[in-house]
């Protein structure tokens, strides 16, 4: 084979594989649906303020807007018991949950991946001790832990919520990464790195990490879905997010008892928002898992 044909075939092969993988993702309807949903909510989180005509925090009853108004042409999702526009609050309320869920998951992934890398690479006593500590952490229920921590700092704090969720996710991600690292560390390229006097940080982060990225990405998307639920639950319980700004969990919490009076809209729409976001993320997680052939 000549240089030119080699050149072409190598480049073409790469392009082809990428194209085929992408085509496969595009054919995966579930993934497309998930991507559309997530894109929608991310857009809302980014520019939601400019998308709505009514200020979500405007207390309608002060301006003569009726409270508990059923969905109509002006208030598409109706108004809540304070006369605030439910539609605006759902759209704008996407920001805190998406930002917090992402930060919490990133925190858990970074911590977990680092611990998993070191633990899986060193093995031995270090590994045993670290894994037992992680087992102990994962034995604690998320909500109890979060409620304890939040009441210790005296109420709602999104920073504490993010840290707690990240902390609880750490063992789960660490375990996944460790399992992948145990396999990778046995491969000869790690021995080859040692045979050119590389130090441990290089071997962990430059050699092994890139090879365990697929499971990390999959685990990240799965955790993101759980984080959405955890944050919604905490804000439903009245902790987790500072009061004031619109957020889905507290919207549900404030109005769910009105469902029985037939005033369903101020509860169902934010609840539906939580559900669609979680489902969207999970559909993406499934698609990503399949694309990586894990």
């Amino acid at each position, binding site marked *: *084979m000549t*240089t030119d044909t*080699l*050149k072409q075939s*190598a480049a073409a*092969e*790469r392009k082809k*594989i990428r194209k*085929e*993988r992408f*085509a*496969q993702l595009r*054919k995966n309807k579930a993934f497309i649906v998930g991507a559309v949903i997530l894109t929608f909510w991310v857009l809302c989180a980014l520019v939601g303020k400019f998308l709505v005509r009514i200020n979500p925090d405007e207390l309608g009853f002060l301006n003569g807007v009726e409270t508990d108004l059923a969905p109509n042409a002006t208030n598409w999702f109706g108004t809540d018991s304070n006369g605030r526009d439910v539609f605006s609050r759902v759209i704008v309320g996407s920001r805190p949950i998406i930002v917090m869920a992402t930060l919490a998951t990133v925190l858990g992934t970074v911590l977990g991946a680092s611990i998993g890398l070191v633990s899986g690479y060193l093995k031995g006593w270090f590994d045993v001790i670290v894994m037992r500590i992680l087992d102990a952490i994962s034995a604690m229920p998320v909500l109890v832990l979060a409620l304890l921590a939040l009441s210790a700092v005296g109420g709602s704090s999104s920073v504490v919520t993010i840290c707690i969720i990240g902390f609880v996710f750490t063992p789960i991600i660490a375990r996944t990464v460790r399992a992948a690292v145990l396999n990778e560390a046995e*491969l*000869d*390229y790690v*021995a*080859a*790195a*040692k*045979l*050119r*006097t*590389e130090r441990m940080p290089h071997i962990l982060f430059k*050699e092994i990490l*890139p*090879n365990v990225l697929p499971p990390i990405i999959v685990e990240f998307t799965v955790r993101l879905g759980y984080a959405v639920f955890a944050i919604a639950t905490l804000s439903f319980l009245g902790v987790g997010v500072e009061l004031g700004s619109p957020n889905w969990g507290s919207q549900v919490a404030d109005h769910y008892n009105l469902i029985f009076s037939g005033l369903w809209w101020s509860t169902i729409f934010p609840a539906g928002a939580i559900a669609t976001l979680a489902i969207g993320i999970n559909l993406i997680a499934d698609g990503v898992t399949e694309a990586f052939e894990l």
Partner: protein
Amino acid sequence: MSTQPALELRDLRVAYRVRGIDREVLRGISLSIQPGEAYGLVGESGCGKSTAAFAAMRYLPRNGSITGGSIHFEGQDITSIGDDEIRELRTNAISMVYQNPIAALNPTIRVGKQVAEVFELLGKPSDEAHDLSLAALKRVQIADAEAVLERYPHQLSGGMAQRVIIAMALASNPRLLVLDEPTTGLDATVEAEVLDLVRELRAETGTAVLFISHNLGVIRTMCDRVGVLYAGALVEEGPTDEVLHKPNHPYTVGLLRCIPRGGLHKQTDRLDTIPGTPPPLGATLPGCVFVDRCAIAKDTCRTTPPNFVELANGHRARCAFHEQAASMPRAVDGTRSSGIGNSASSSSELLNISKLSKTFAQDSGDVRVLTEVSLSLRKGETLGLVGESGSGKTTLAKNLLGITQPDAGSVITLDGKTLGATLRDRSASEVGAVQIVFQNPDSALNRRHTVMRIVARAIEKLAGKSRDEAEDTAQVLLNDMSVDPILHSVKPTQLSGGLKQRVAIARSFAGRPQLVVCDEPTSALDVSVQANILNLLVDLQSKENVSYVFISHDLGVVRYISDRIAVLYLGRIMELGSAETVFNGPHHPYTEALVSSVPAIDGSQRVRVRLGGEVPSPANPPQGCVLNPRCPRMAGSGVEHLCTSVEPDLVEAEPGHFLRCHIPLAQLRQIQDK
């Protein structure tokens, strides 16, 4: 019995769906196997051998489908029969033996239960199943069958597990037995025994056999007829002797020329290769499938697929120019003029290993894997290391490299300087001076790094160069390995096996090594690629005057590339001498058994010298000579009492030829000449 062929494939086409697209792996294969006949399928990896084997059982992976043609078993079309019927056939009439016997057994269930299950499936009452299982294991000559029934698969050696699988496969007295590389993972001595067993059982039962192997020697000794597969198409077929003696397809000719065979040596000969690589899975091939790599291809070959040309005795070749195949030009010049290796015998000493031992501490007690190994190696010399698995070859290599730490008292010197026991104790230049080429290039190269980065990083660290300088040097180095510049920016997953191994070799040469350990560097590669890599290693040696420690289980390869050979058994050197002496004898009895177990491609019959029993555990080596419980020559030697009580020393029995054996050399010569 029917007179129909046991198995017949008619224009069979199979495709695998990968990333959403169907890719053809079998391109219309037609073959038939008569009752009682053994049919071999050979070819390089990815040519569709295993797919053909699984298709014969109508067992394809989830993404595989039959897209054309038909499969007939004893005249019955089984291409599209229902699941119940195919299950019935697999239970009663067709059996399969797999490549990895340990993986083919369920690790959580005792062997006895797994074998009994087969008989229960056949409708035997469960109280008879135990006795039948016992009989089945005895039939495949498993020693201590009763005890084996009680064991779990991980407690069996590879050879024993394969016997168990064969026993299970034969339980139903099948009319067709499919063997998919049944001995590929086994040591040569065990392979020879398993092949003997299959041959005997076949003579006894008259079962038709479809035998898949990449090893032409194995096919030669096992099969009546052979089919050569390339890129999913049968290119040549006929009686085994005919095809291997008078190949009529350029691919078969090429394959046979690639193999290092008796007599060829790096000092005088270069191996021929087949240029290029096989077409990718599912490629569209309008003409002859082999045209891109064929030395005698004409323009018509690109456009018109050739038909089978019938030759004598049912020998047929699918080549329009088959008369020219045997005399086709070589891809590589056959002789080597530079005096490679000649200087090695007179050059100065590079490596000296003195009393190297390695003990692994385990809960159940210490296991001594290497026992006082002493060796030396000259500059530019190649030392072949052979021995069965567990003989300590790889441990020896790891100790040389400093990956594992030898026991206290072991001394390794390189160029007169004592090397540190571990990598930490060695300077960067010392680390660079002793490098390795790993067995499996897939695992040896980081699949997320580019070729350039892999090589340049090694130069950076080992030669202490800046990144830019390292990249310049890497360019040159990769060019020397014939890795095209355009491939420098791709990742290893986009390279073929041979190219990957070239990159790995380039990396091992990054720190200007004096000694390179080659740990089975070609065993994961196809023969045509193997020839390429061996030629490259020899070229590098003559250019750089580097020394090699070459580990391989393939004795043909070791013989070709080695100046001297050390034979290891249970962590001890049993024999050490020049390649010629070790192969021509008189041998150590262990070497003799190893050499005689290799199936010859040319069909020449050797007297098989068998080792009895299994390799003993290094945790508990036998009293006296460690070989004595298995030694083929101890009985009748007159020194039995010594063999069982005193461990012999490694002594220089004749100039340059060391043996660890109580039997005098003259007596060994006499026995072996018979």
